[in-house]
């Protein structure tokens, strides 16, 4: 099918110039996963379909505006009233176009929803206004909040120029660290209100809803630092709970995990891990907040 070809072409084109798209201030990133590249391809496919239709439709409109002006002596053709034939044609053509675009979209959707066979599960809990990450079965968990320098600069009339702050509003104290080329499953929930966990480079965005567990997954092909933000209005500081995911090589990740586990062991002698209590009664927390 033509459109799938277009999609593949766009995807490969995009993949050929990843850095260019990554830096873009006007388009989606191609991203760091196969899924994100597919989504980018879908996005560009739809974009070009719209452009093509726009050229035809706007072309006819502009032609009419230029050609059939009364000031140029145009006389209206009063016989042009209706035609069942053209109505059918311009109903069917869009239907066909839409079917052609829906097919690759549906395929991608099926892939995105398939969370089976993941190698690492991280439970992500949205709080007003920070994230909590728990590496399931690994004994590691921590909160992740807006970095201190950003937080200082973003206060009303702080007088601090955001341009001088490193990764202003896109930096946290404790980033999530994950291994490269590994299928990571995120299990999302909210502690108080609904939040939404979005990392554009993974094309992952899923709501973190109190009382329910939502699933999403990603498998990064690249090592690097990827940022995202909360994308569901969650109150006063909704704009200030960013996400930072650090994708490291498998060895680096193992080392990081071991360090964290050791630190956690040392700490548990005194205090209870926050999640042990945090999520047992999310609703109680919710009602208390009401």
């Amino acid at each position, binding site marked *: 099918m033509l459109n799938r070809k277009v999609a593949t072409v766009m995807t490969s084109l995009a993949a050929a110039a990843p850095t260019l798209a990554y830096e873009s201030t006007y388009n989606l990133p191609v991203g760091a996963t196969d899924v994100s590249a597919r989504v980018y391809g879908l996005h560009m496919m*739809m974009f070009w379909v*719209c452009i093509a*239709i726009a050229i035809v439709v706007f072309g006819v409109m502009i032609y009419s505006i230029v050609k059939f002006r009364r000031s140029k002596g145009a006389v209206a053709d009063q016989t042009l009233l209706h035609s069942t034939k053209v109505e059918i044609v311009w109903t069917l053509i869009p239907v066909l176009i839409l079917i052609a675009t829906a097919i690759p979209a549906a395929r991608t959707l099926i892939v995105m929803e398939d969370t089976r066979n993941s190698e690492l599960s991280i439970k992500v809990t949205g709080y007003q206004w920070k994230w909590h990450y728990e590496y399931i079965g690994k004994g590691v968990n921590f909160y992740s909040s807006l970095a201190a320098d950003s937080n200082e600069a973003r206060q009303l009339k702080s007088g601090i120029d955001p341009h001088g702050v490193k990764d202003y509003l896109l930096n946290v104290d404790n980033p999530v660290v994950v291994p490269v080329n590994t299928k990571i499953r995120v299990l999302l929930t909210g502690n108080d209100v609904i939040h939404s966990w979005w990392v554009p480079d993974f094309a992952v965005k899923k709501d973190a809803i109190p009382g329910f567990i939502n699933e999403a997954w990603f498998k990064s092909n690249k090592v690097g630092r990827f940022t995202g933000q909360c994308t569901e209005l969650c109150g006063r500081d909704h*704009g200030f709970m960013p996400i930072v995911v650090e994708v490291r090589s498998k060895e680096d990740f193992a080392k990081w995990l071991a360090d964290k586990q050791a630190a956690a062991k040392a700490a548990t002698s005194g205090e209870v891990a926050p999640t042990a209590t945090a999520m047992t009664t999310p609703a109680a927390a919710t009602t208390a907040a009401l």
Partner: protein
Amino acid sequence: MAHADTHALHAADHHDDHKPHGIGRWLFATNHKDIGTMYMVFALIMFFIGGAMAMVIRLELFKPGMQFVDPGFYNSLVTSHALVMIFGAVMPAFVGLANWMIPLQIGAPDMALPRMNNYSFWILPFAFTLLLSSFFTAGGGPAGGWTLYPPLSLQAGDSFPLTIFAIHMMGASSIMGAINVIVTIMNMRAPGMTLLKLPLFCWTWLITAYLLIAVMPVLAGAVTMLLTDHYFGTSFFNPAGGGDPVMFQHIFWFFGHPEVYILILPAFGIVSEIIPTFSRKPLFGYDAMVYATASIAFLSFIVWAHHMFTVGMPLAGQMFFMMSTMLIAVPTGVKVFNWTTTMWKGSLSFEPPMLFALAFLFLFTIGGFSGLMLAIAPADYQYQDTYFVVAHFHYVLVPGAVFAIMAGVYYWLPKWTGHMYSMTLAKWHFWVSTISVNVLFFPQHFLGLAGMPRRIPDYNVQFTDWNMVSSIGGFVFGLSQLLFVAVIIQSARGGPKATAKVWDAEPLGLEWTVPSPAPYHSFSDAPEVH
């Protein structure tokens, strides 16, 4: 379409044309034109209030860093901006146009239920007093977004019940207005005006009214559940008690998606009146237009969850809602193609109503295209809750719905006041608005794609440039609306006398058979329609 016979008019009665005097004329009004005027004035005031909030939003977003407002107050501004614009500006403006034009277009003496007509208007100022007064309560105005999602919306302070009850009142007003429109169109048509001779503005309003009656009560139900969850311990949206916050979203969007067509169908109707007039050619494919409108209305009930692709719906649900949403492009396309073909081989001239209608045609279509992109579920994962969505809906709402309202006002204003207005001034308004509205909203597509979430008061420096451009566009667009007001005031106060036909064309429809200004009482004796 309707060809009218004017002779009945001049036999009109003598005593009936005197207007009531003083403030009572407005407070106790039962005349569809007076009520229509009040609706229009109210809508304009609300447009300025909502616009002023938007200006503060754009000011805060002009550059990164928090300069002017507290983040909580910012959220209140965004929430109220949307509620005011949708329920205070666009919907009442359409009801005002319906009040003025439907009786004139169908040859009726007035709206079918005149007292209820006045009730549905007067509820509105009080409803918005409630809503806006919440800004002065402890905790400030409603700040959960116009979508009022729980549990966040339940965290509000004193503003909470005020918002809920204001919405109840707006809903009651809309339902009464809609009942009035349906009854008027179904029961008050002049003899010979069959349904398939009905002007398209009436058709689109008729279908809009059905939508309103079907979904406003659902919104009332949704906010009532919020109210009881907040005060009476119910668990509709509380998972601990077996409820689900996402259930609110389903109920809300079951209202919300038809609502966006409520905001656009009458606009389609206005454009379908204007384009034929200034193309000097009847509308192409009248029947197809009617069926397309009905199909859009029908489909609007089965697409709601496209606002919720990221909530974790089952795969089958996402598939269904993706495909049904895409289908809406088909009847909408039929409309766009018919408008275009109406201009084809026409004899076009470009008075202000036509200019606004043309801008509508182009810019609404652009908004429709971005809507179609949003409908692609996997891609929507990237767009959802970013400025790409903000760009989409402002394109369909501002150069869509609002421009159509302006086109309608410019089209019928001389019929209302009896005076022509300054074409030059109106064209200035058009050009400044059309250019600046694109400067305002086009860059927001880029912002969204590059990763800027919506509903945030501050952002990373990478988004600075496009935000500045957008804000500048916003200020210019806002200021240019003062020209609109100037034109209206000018035409209300005086100016060259308008003829019955007003336009240098042969506009179809009964409203052009009565003198300008239209007599205080419309067709006391029904005209014959052939």
